[in-house]
């Protein structure tokens, strides 16, 4: 049975056979009132929510303590204040940072002055770089890089990770005149830099490579440095030979 027909049949029959009499207005008023109230209340609530968001936008809550880190270079544990002092002075002196940025390289005499520390303390600063860096060894009186030296240099250069600066600390000999040694260690430092330039054509090389060349008056290496990674590992090494070298390493410090 069709329920709607039942509905219609249950209505009181109209007197003139036409449509049923008008329904009482109550349900329509209730329905309209409920709809209107709901629409108005919810629209008001929506507007209030939007306004509240606008207020929060204008007066944001204090950011939580944990700030988002900013991309930066590595800061290794060996970056002690003493190390950073030397680093900063080397960078300034070598023209990598600071006002004197047109200048390249450092004078040997400067090292003693700017380092303001003893030979052994100066070398000790680089001890934590033993595994990060390497000792590039040269033949006596030579500034030529041999194939092993080139290979090791390439490896170390490409193992930059988060470092900012690449240090080259060249030495010449424990014997001989300081002038001659300075000139030779200067050439060795430049050999390293030039090879890196030729090999990698890195446009930022000048901003990254810090050169130090030492005469025999400061920070000479003793035989214990023969144990460091070097281009002639396993071969005979002496205190004299290990100073015919350039120590190279990326430095993981921020300034």
């Amino acid at each position, binding site marked *: 049975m069709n329920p709607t027909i*039942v509905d219609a049949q*249950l209505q009181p029959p109209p007197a003139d056979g036409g449509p049923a009499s008008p329904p009482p207005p109550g349900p329509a008023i209730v329905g309209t009132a409920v709809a*209107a109230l709901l629409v108005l209340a*919810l*629209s008001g609530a929506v507007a209030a*929510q939007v306004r509240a968001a606008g207020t929060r936008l204008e007066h944001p809550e204090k950011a939580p303590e944990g700030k988002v880190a900013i*991309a930066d*270079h590595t800061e290794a544990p060996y970056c002690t204040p003493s190390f950073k002092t030397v680093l900063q002075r080397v960078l300034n002196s070598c023209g990598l940072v600071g006002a004197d940025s047109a200048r390249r390289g450092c004078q040997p005499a400067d090292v003693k002055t700017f380092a303001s520390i003893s030979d052994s303390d100066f070398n000790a600063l680089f001890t934590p770089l033993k595994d990060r860096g390497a000792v590039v060894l040269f033949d006596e009186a030579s500034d030529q890089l041999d194939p092993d030296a080139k290979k090791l240099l390439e490896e170390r250069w490409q193992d930059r*990770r988060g470092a900012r600066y690449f240090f080259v600390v060249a030495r010449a000999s424990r014997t001989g005149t300081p002038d001659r040694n300075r000139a030779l260690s200067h050439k060795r430092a430049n050999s390293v830099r030039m090879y890196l330039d030729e090999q990698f054509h890195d446009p930022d090389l000048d901003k990254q490579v810090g050169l130090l060349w030492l005469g025999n008056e400061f920070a000479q290496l003793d035989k214990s440095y023969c144990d460091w990674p070097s281009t002639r590992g396993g071969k005979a090494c002496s205190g004299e030979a290990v100073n015919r070298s350039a120590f190279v390493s990326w430095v993981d410090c921020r300034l």
Partner: protein
Amino acid sequence: MLPRTARWPATLALVASVLGLVFASYSTFDYAAHLDRQLHAVHCSFIPGAPASEDVNNACRTAMYSPYAALLRGQFWGGVPIASFAVGAFAFFVGFALWLVLARERSPLRARLFFGVLGLTPVVASVVMFFISLVRLGSFCKLCVGIYVSSLLLAVAAGRTLMDARSSVGVRPGHVALPFAWLAALGASALLPAALWVATLPDYRPLLASCGKLPVAVESHGALLKLPTKEPRQAVTLFVDPLCPTCKALHERLLGEGVFERLDPQVSMFPLDSDCNWMLDRPVHPGACVLARAVLCGGASRARQVLEWSYDEQETLAKLGKDGAALLKAKVVSRWGQDMAACLDARSTTLKLNQHLQFAVANHVPVSTPQMFLGDQRVCDEDTDLGLRFTLAQLAPQVLP
């Protein structure tokens, strides 16, 4: 007493309208909360009143951030949520259904016919949104499903009312103008929340360009990846992580907006994985370094494909990444060929990835992904989801279709 079958359509319509109103209201209020450009919990439950979820990847958030959640997004920050129209419409149907319930058989024929026809409209909108969820979003938000079900129940009630009305006899028809008045009332009800929404929106324009610049726009080694697009009109720099869900979502939003093909993107890989990224002390996305290398190995021709594959397969790849790099590499090689194997481990690839990371350092960008720069102007993170289209309309209107 009337048979129960005579009353159930109106009662069902009332219940369905109330349910739809509740779900639509939660959805609208959640949307409104995000107008402060901050991240908030969102309600995502079939149970009205259940606590909001903080989960950043829940389906309701996905739906909310999608281009389909709101209208006029280019004109207003965040646009006007579709749910706000539903709030007004369901409120109208609550009142109308209540009238039908109370009036029973004394309701005019035109009221029943009107309800029978107009009560079907929410389900039409729901069917459209259902297919968008299915095809475009690939997920169903529970609040949305709540609205779909409410609309369906309303449609069932409306359909039955319509059938009954067409076969009824002797029922008073009601005034001929009433349907027009109801239609106007329905329109006004649906539009009022949206109109108030627009009227109370704050002005976002001063905020859009307040998030900084890219100080070093060019990577000196030329290491950044250029992704090919069909109609590049605007240079954009993106810092992305292949395993970052937010990066995937942004990429999908840019594609969904029809914007990506009009960008000229250079991509800096920024994997949040301590395996290669020294800026982290633990991996946020283990395996992201492997995938970043894979994208780099894709080179100019395949980088976009590899990146989009990483996004498409993100869940699987993230799981493999947690199980170890070897499994992830095997997956990459199985998809992209044996030549990828050598490239992944090549020192030159490591060097290139490092140049990407150093590019991030040079620009002092936050250690987070994704980050987008239109030219050198940083797009605030807060404007890369709800406000994306508005932001693009203001900062680079030429990229909008």
